[in-house]
Each structure stands twice: as C-alpha cells, then as structure tokens.
C-alpha cells in the first residue's frame, strides 16, 4: 500500500540513480539510522554491548570486506582471520608508537596497512583462481598468524605474547580500555560501520564495482571488453583488506581489548566471515548485515535455549551449535543460494504488488 513507485516522480538522473528510489525505503533507512544513532545509545547496557551489538558491528565490517572480494569480485579468500590480525597488530603498533594522535586515525591507518598486505597476498590471484586462490589465501592466514606469534616486535616484547589496547579517547570520551562506557564504544564502531557501508555501497554501484562484477561473472570475457584484470582484482583485494583490517582493529581495540593471535585470529574466524556472507547473500550489502546478525545471534539464541531453558551443559550446546550451523549452511546453499538478501528482495517485490498481487 505504501511501498510502491506510483506517484514518486523522478525529474533528474541523480534522483533516478539514487540508492533508495522508493520514498518508503528512504524513510525506513532514516528510521533505522535514527534508532541506531539516537535510541540505542540511550538504552544500551553492558551485556548488549559486549555480546550482541559490538560483535554485530565488527563482524558486519568484516563481512562487508569479504563480500566485496568474494561476492562482488568472485575471489574466494580464506585469509580473513590473518588480515584481521594485520589490522589489530597495525592499530596496536600505531597506538603505542604515536599515543598523541587520535585513535580514529590509527584505525584507518591500520586499515591502510592491511590493504597493502592484502594487495601483496592478492598478487597470485592474477594467475590462479577458485580453490587454488583459496589455498593461496590460506598461506596468508597461517603465515601471518605465525608471524605475529613469533616476531616479538609486533607485540612490543610483552612477556605474555598478548597485545593489550591502551585507553584512548575521542573528543575526551574513552572508547577503549576497561572503563569505556558501552554507548561510547558502540557509537565509535557505529560511525565506522556507517561510513564503510556507505563507501561499499557507492563503490559497488560505480565503475569499479561493475568491473569487479564483470571479473566475477566471466573473467576472460571481461578482459576482452576492456576490463583490466590486474587493476580490478588488486583493487578488490585492497578495498576488501582495508575493510577487514578496520574490522580487525576494532575487534582488538574496542571489543576484546586484549588478544592473542592463535586464538583470536585463527582459521575459524575466516570461516565465520565466509558463513556470514553465504547466509546473508553473496554480492549484497544488506546481506552482510543480515549474515552478521544471524551468525552473532544464533549462538546467543541457542545458548539461551539449551543452557538457559533446558539446562544442558555448555559443551553440549557448543557441539549442537556446530551441527546446526553446518546444517544451515548446506540448507541455505541448496534452498536459497543467494541468502537472506534474496528473501528480502522477494519480500520487497511482493510488497510492491500488495494487496493486489495480479
């Protein structure tokens, strides 16, 4: 009834090409922003911050990054955990080396460092693809984690081999460290998520995104019509790693505060992000958020059901979580290979015609 183009006249190209062409969509978008920026910071508490909202935001950024590479450019990467580690250690080194500079710039710079590392490990993609590339990115995963474990310069020679985020402020408000308020850390992450999602959305619908998609759909044909594969693949690796690096930096500084590479950035994290984009939808910005929300909420939900309501031991719930997660992945790939984003799209199509479907 409300959700349709009728009566919504476009009089310029800019208006025609906008992200949300339907006014109801636009209103909904601003409504979500209003809730996220104004309402949630007022009601947030420690539990929601640490176990739901911050994980959701951080994983959303990582999923955006991987989706750019895998969903838009078609290059499968299993090195997400390693690239997140680069972001985390990059931000740590910058934070401790230049304590006077605002942490915001450290995190962006950590993203930049990760982008450079990503380009380096993306070089093989010019010659190989598919599983072969997946194995090449595995090399990045294992090598980087090993590097951060063995070279003590990266963790400033601390005895435990851990890195711990010092307390830092933005506009005089603490955003890292044990005493940071939940609303401050939440808003800090949210700003990154908002900016990066905006960048991702606009990159993917512009020239660069179309080049990526051409490479994804058929690389040789793309090359013949004049897409430079070197440029397209390496920019995809760079942008993707930039996002993942920022996710890793936030993961370390804001969410955990102290990490140890083998546990925090293991291959399991690479798979987690891959699952997010499969369940959410490959090649969709909305899908990144949907997938991240799904993967973050599923364990919380299962834990509440099995441990909280049924009183089962936690290890049993953890095993069941694996079974359910694996089953869901297969289920999604069989039933809806385009993920939650496709369900959303179908729902919107239906809404457009509602209540007269014919």
């Amino acid at each position, binding site marked *: 009834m409300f959700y349709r183009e009728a009566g919504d006249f476009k009089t310029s190209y800019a208006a025609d090409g906008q992200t949300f062409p339907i006014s109801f969509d636009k209103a909904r978008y601003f409504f979500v922003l209003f809730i996220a920026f104004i309402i949630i910071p007022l009601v947030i508490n420690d539990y929601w911050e640490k176990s739901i909202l911050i994980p959701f935001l951080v994983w959303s950024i990582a999923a955006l990054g991987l989706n750019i590479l895998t969903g838009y450019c078609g290059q*499968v990467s299993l090195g997400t955990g390693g690239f997140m580690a680069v972001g985390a250690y990059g931000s740590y080194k910058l934070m401790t080396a230049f304590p006077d500079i605002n942490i915001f710039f450290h995190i962006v710079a950590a993203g930049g460092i990760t982008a450079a590392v990503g380009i380096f490990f993306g070089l*093989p993609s010019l*010659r*190989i693809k*598919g*599983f*072969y590339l*997946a*194995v*090449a990115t*595995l*090399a990045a995963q*294992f*090598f980087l*984690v*090993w590097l951060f*474990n*063995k*070279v003590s310069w990266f963790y400033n020679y601390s005895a435990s081999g851990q890195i711990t985020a010092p307390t830092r402020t933005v506009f005089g408000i603490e955003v890292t460290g044990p005493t940071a308020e939940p609303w401050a850390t939440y808003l800090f992450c949210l700003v990154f998520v908002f900016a990066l999602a905006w960048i991702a959305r606009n990159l993917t619908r512009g020239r660069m995104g179309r080049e990526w998609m051409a490479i994804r759909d*058929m690389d*040789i*044909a793309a090359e*013949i019509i004049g897409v430079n594969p070197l440029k397209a693949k390496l920019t995809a690796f760079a942008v993707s790693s930039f996002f993942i690096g920022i996710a890793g930096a936030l993961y370390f500084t804001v969410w955990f505060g102290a990490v140890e590479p083998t546990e925090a950035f293991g*291959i399991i994290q690479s*798979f987690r992000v*891959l*699952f997010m984009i*499969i369940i959410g939808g490959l090649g969709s910005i909305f899908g990144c958020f949907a997938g991240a929300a799904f993967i973050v909420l599923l364990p919380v939900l299962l834990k509440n059901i099995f441990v909280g309501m*049924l*009183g*089962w*031991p936690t*290890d*049993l719930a953890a*095993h*069941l*979580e*694996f*079974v*359910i*997660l*694996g*089953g*869901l*992945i*297969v289920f999604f*790939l*069989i039933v809806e*290979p385009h993920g939650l984003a496709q369900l959303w799209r179908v729902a919107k199509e239906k809404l457009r015609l509602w209540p007269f479907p014919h």
Partner: protein
Amino acid sequence: MVDFLIFLEVVLNGLMAGVMYALVALGFVLIFKASGIFNYAQGVMALFAAATLVGLINGQVPFAHMISAITGVKVHHFGWHINAFLAIALTGLVMFALAVVIERYILKHLVNQEPIILFMATIGLAFFMEGFSDLMWGSELKALDVGIPKGIVEPLDEATFNAFGYGMYIDWLDVYATAIAIILVVSLTLFSQYTKTGRALRAVADDHQAALSVGISLRRIWVIVWTIAGIVALVAGIMWGSKSGVQFSLSLIALKALPVLILGGFTSIPGAIVGGLIIGVGEKLFEYSIGPMIGGATENWFAYVLALAFLIFRPQGLFGDKIIERV
C-alpha cells in the same frame, strides 16, 4: 657421517609424514575426479571415522552425553570390547551409510552448481560432522590402539649406532603406515583399472555426460566414490589416531592436504602421492635447516607458502591436466 645420518633421518621421517598427507590427499583426489567436488570435509571424515572406531572398540554409548542431559539417565559404556578388525569393518559400514546420506540429502540437490558453491557446501558439511561427531562420541582426546606396533625401530637404531655412533630414530608406526598406504594405493589403482565399477569411475571422471549417456548411474557412482573416500579417511584416521590420539586437530590435516593437491594436481592419484612426499620432506628439512634461525614452528605455514610459490610457476600442479580456458 653423523651429519649425513641426521639428514637422512630427517628425510626419512619427512617421507613418512608425507605418506600420511598423501593418504588424506588421495581421498580428495578420488572425489574431485568423480564429481568435481572439492571435499573440504575429508579431514573431518577422518576424525569421524576414527572416533567411531574408538567408540565401537570401547563399546561407548553414542550420544551418551546428550541422553544424560535430556533424560537424566547416566550411561557411558555398554561394557564390551569389540575386536579391532570387526570394529574396522563396522566403521566401514558406517562410512558407507554416511556416503548414502550425503549423496541423498546434499549432492543430489546441488547438481550443476558452481564448484565454489559445492566447496562451501562441503565446508558446511565439515562443520556439521564435526559437531555431530562430538555429540555422538564426545570431544575429549581418545587413545586409539588397533594393534599396530609403536616405538623405535630397534634393529636400525642399533645397526647405525654400532656402525657410525649415531642411532637413527624411525617409528614402527610410520613404517607400517607407509606399507599400508602403499597397499591401499596399489589396490585402488588395480580396482580402477581392472573392475567394471572402476572403469565406470574413470568414465565419470573423464566426462559426466558421456558416462550418463552410456548408462552409468551418476548417483550410484557418487555413493561408491564417497564410500571409498570414507574408507581412505578411515585408514588415515587410524594412522593419525594411533600416532597422536583421536582429537579435533585430526580434522586440520585436511588443510595440510590442500598444498599437497596444489603440488600434485587435483586430478592425479600419483600426483597426490608425490605431492605428499615433497611437502612432507620439504617441511621437515626446512624446519631442520632454516627453522631454528627464524623461531621454529615453520611447519604451520611452510607447505602453504611452497604451494603458493608453486602456483605462480605451474598452476596446474606437477601432474595435473593442463588448464584450458574458453569463453
């Protein structure tokens, strides 16, 4: 002379570790050739097979933990011990059932999907089976003993010590593993060369559609191939399990098999063997000669970096088919 002996020892141990990698890689190659699926779950299949074997031998009650959580009944063991050979045969049956279930509920629905989708489906399958295996048999470290001798090969140790003053260390288990792997590979080769089913397998590997058109049932072939891969996984699981116990890290050998495949080529059985040997020897030698200089534990990544370097010069692997691309 002692230096040379140490070097030889490192190489021999590397070769034997390589045989283990080759065993896992073999399972990958079989499935990849027959169905074009890169089966990430191969390592977890080895874990599941080994855990099932231990459970059967010890008479463990499946899902004991879950049963006690739901009903409050405490059950652990049936209180019997099954003969190891019988248990291995039973586990083989379980792997066959698993192959049927996988074909029926997953592969059938994913025919004609892109390879990368199939790959991700097997990652999902790997997670599922990992959780399932833990639910069924428990996640603790389990000792597996099917009667393969363990420990140092004493005659060799004594002979080299008497002759050169340095006793070489070779484990009996590795020797047996190598022998069993060789038997397995030879019998697989004979099977695929001289039996009707084997010929059908090769036909499917060559061309799916042509095989279909001469009346070979793809679904039956897939069940057979996954069963064989399951049995290879069982053998690999027994070997690794006897060596270092049955535990989660067993499933990580699947990841080690990836560089092996890159080196050997995804479609070549001899390639899997040679690739496994190269990786095994290479990583032991690298750890022995360069490892101490850069902090050790290089085995974690050496194989992948070697594969990466390899990919740049010969993407199809040593024995793989040449990659031809058409628009």
